[in-house]
């Protein structure tokens, strides 16, 4: 069965007919070509697919596209504005918070939701928040530093 799904994707109104079982991440990657959102597992563990749906971080591999109808979606491609990196993106670069880059979009999207809820998170709070985001390269050390620095500049900025 095919259904029509419409939402706002990084500020742009989009719409598509998809099979009703289509996952949100599939729709974003395959119908709209926004491939910055990644799929790293099939059990909601890794967090490479984290996006924002109506301002909250969500694992887009665990949500049907149909459930996103009428929502406002932001993916990693929508974080930088007018060619200007977001302070959190800049912090990941500055603090070497990424190596292979595969988990990075999910990490950044997750970090942005953390800072929204807790503008000045402690190291411990950052580590606990990242429970749903796996990284196999960095050992998290520099991701934690990056998120702390990103939060600091967002407060200042």
């Amino acid at each position, binding site marked *: 069965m095919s259904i029509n799904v419409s939402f706002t994707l990084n500020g742009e109104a989009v719409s598509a007919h998809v099979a009703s079982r289509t996952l949100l991440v599939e729709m974003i990657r395959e119908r709209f070509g926004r491939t910055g959102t*990644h799929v*790293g*597992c099939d059990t909601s563990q890794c967090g490479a697919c984290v996006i924002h749906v109506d301002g909250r971080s969500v694992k887009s591999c665990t949500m049907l596209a149909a459930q996103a109808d009428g929502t406002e979606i932001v993916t990693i491609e929508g974080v930088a504005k007018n060619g200007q990196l977001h302070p959190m993106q800049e912090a990941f670069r500055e603090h070497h918070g990424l190596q*292979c880059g595969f988990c990075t979009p999910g990490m950044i999207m997750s970090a942005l939701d953390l800072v929204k809820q807790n503008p000045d998170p402690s190291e411990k709070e950052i580590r606990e928040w990242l429970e749903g985001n796996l990284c196999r*390269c960095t050992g998290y050390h520099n991701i934690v530093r990056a998120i702390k620095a990103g939060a600091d500049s967002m407060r200042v900025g």
Partner: protein
Amino acid sequence: MTENGFGAAVRRKEDHRFITGLGQFVDDINRPHQLYAQIIRSPIAHGKINKVDVDAAIAMSGVVAVFTGADMAADGVGGIPCGWGITSKDGSPMVEPGHPPLAAECVRYVGDQVAVVLAETRAIARDAAELVDVDYAELPSVANLESASADGAPLVWDDAKGNICFDWEIGDKSATDAAFAGADQVVTIDIVNNRLIANAIEPRAAIGDYDAGKDEYTLYTTSQNPHVIRMLMGAFVLSIPEHKLRVIAPDVGGGFGSKICHYAEEAIVTWASRKVNRPVKWTADRSESFISDAHGRDHVSHAELAMSKDGDFLGLRVSTRANLGAYLSTFGPAVPTILYATLLAGSYKTPAIHAEVKAMFTHTVPVDSYRGAGRPEASYLLERLVDKAAKQTGIDPIELRRRNFIQPEDFPYQTPVALEYDTGDYDAAVVKAIELADYANFDQRREESAARGKLRGVGISTYIEACGIAPSNVAGALGARAGLYEVGTVRVNPTGSVTVLTGSHSHGQGHETTFAQLVVEALGVDFDNVDIVHGDTGKVPFGMGTYGSRSAAVGGVALMNALEKIRTKAKKIAAHLLEASEDDIEFKDGQLSVAGTDRSVAFGDVAMAAYVPHNYPLETLEPGLEETAFYDPKNFTFPAGCHICEVEVDPDTGVVQVVRFTAGDDFGRIINPMIVDGQVHGGVTQGIGQALYEQCVYDDSGQLLTGSMMDYCLPKADNVPNFAVTTNVTPCTHNVLGVKGCGEAGAIGSPSAVINAVLNALSDYNVDDLQMPATSERVWQAMQGNG
């Protein structure tokens, strides 16, 4: 130091695309009119294939084709080759079974490929795969080393009696026996090196794309070494001449060794693409990764250390059984032999060493390299054994190590197990590490932990490893079926920007930055005017890729040699332009000057002159400014270091938390300290994962119980502390960069430091031994006396 040159913590060029979501991983690539492949895999560990009924699947709307092993065999498709041959101690070659990409007669592990469905969408391919009906006659199986070794055990391969692939040895047995006969004391240990799954966060993927017009194939694949895949798949499996096969490994989301191997799926999509004349794309889901990516480690060992009454090491005897899985993976046989037993001298002057390794087949996923590949197994065994010796003799563990260290004046040092270490200063790393770890005040921290009801322990390891396997002729004599050099091409463009083509492959290591730093240092060009191209056999000369911490020590040196050729030619051109003698030209900071004068020409102008050779010595010099170097190292490099771990154990639950971790490493000279620190953080975390969390578990029938990220425990952010890292530098003596390699050290040095720390924390509990992973249950049971 030049800004952005050698030694600078330059921020990475590659980051921008990854933090903005513009990286291009294989699954991000789509080819026009592509089909989606779904592999049908064996659900049983061992069985005969009676019949594969594909009728219902083919009848499904949207299905284009279903192929089986019989179809591939009918096309004359060859087996997946093994890249390393080992000879048993009786002189016989290892048992080397055939490995068809799709099994036609028999399946030998859960996950073995049986058939492939090609369909218009991924969803249709998955649905149709459910309709492929394979009739198996299930056969008895062996799921682990113990059952494979039992009398009368079912055989994985009929010609591998006792399931033994090879029975290999290294070292002088009689000298070692003599050392034990003369020893005052002997320490023994039994070690299980737990089986692991690499779990790069990007699952493997492959797209085969056949161009009928040109009769050419392109394979996009998640590989650490695209040229190796082109050679193995083109020459051995599909008989495609290399000039008709292009392999592209674009952005790759982590490898850790698991993406070295040539996998069946690469051959299946490439072959199938020609069969249906459409591109064919396959992407593993994570469940598939668990049962198809090469696994790592899985050794069981017994070791004995002979000592004098003063604690001098006299001899080491090691007996290891290694699980190779059901088939030989690309470098599977090299891991428990050449990459393992040759490292058993560690940092110590043990004069006699003998090791024997029985490699065995089991009905499990093939086993191959995982970060460190053999060296973590050697280091873990040795550093656990030395700690046990310290406990048994009552000598302080650091003092016992120091007493036996190879000293700086001993280099070059020939070990009893084939390697010749070129340089090092092991005590210097210990001094740095214990200072950074504030080791002197550990007792105070232990009391603080005790006040909170926690048992605190400290553990140390002093590891050594060998990187950049070389030289090729020696590796060949040891069984390598490939060269182990690397290639670098420097293409100076007419306007002075530089394109580097390297055979190394970056999948997180940051070559696009560090290799550019080498160019900046050598040519004085702007960092932003350097581009590093890798991962495409259509662009890059034949190179061997990235594994074994070889990129800087082999690929970086190849690049340096090519840069030196550019410098030499640029000086000749400058000499002509400046009407001076070539010997008088100085090349510094991007300017070529006549020594002692103010006459100079910018490197960019030299480049332009090379491509617009109007004023140019055409009689003696070719136009253009592009040079290539192939570099085959004289020896391995030998990073070493000291890791110190502190843990807290909760006595009520057995939960272990790493609370401090310090690494003092010697990687030789360092191109980018920020990147090196990051490699250590990641490596140590994988080592902590092995020590405390990760374990691949099969049940007795060969079913993988840890088949998802819910069951296989990867370290999370709150499982690890911040890391304290420092380096001591003894430059490698045999390469121009003085570099050694840093990618694997973290995973090599850390597991023993962690377990030694846990045992230290349990020192009041009479716990002698603890196998990895030291899960809360295992620790708690050991504390109850049930270890």
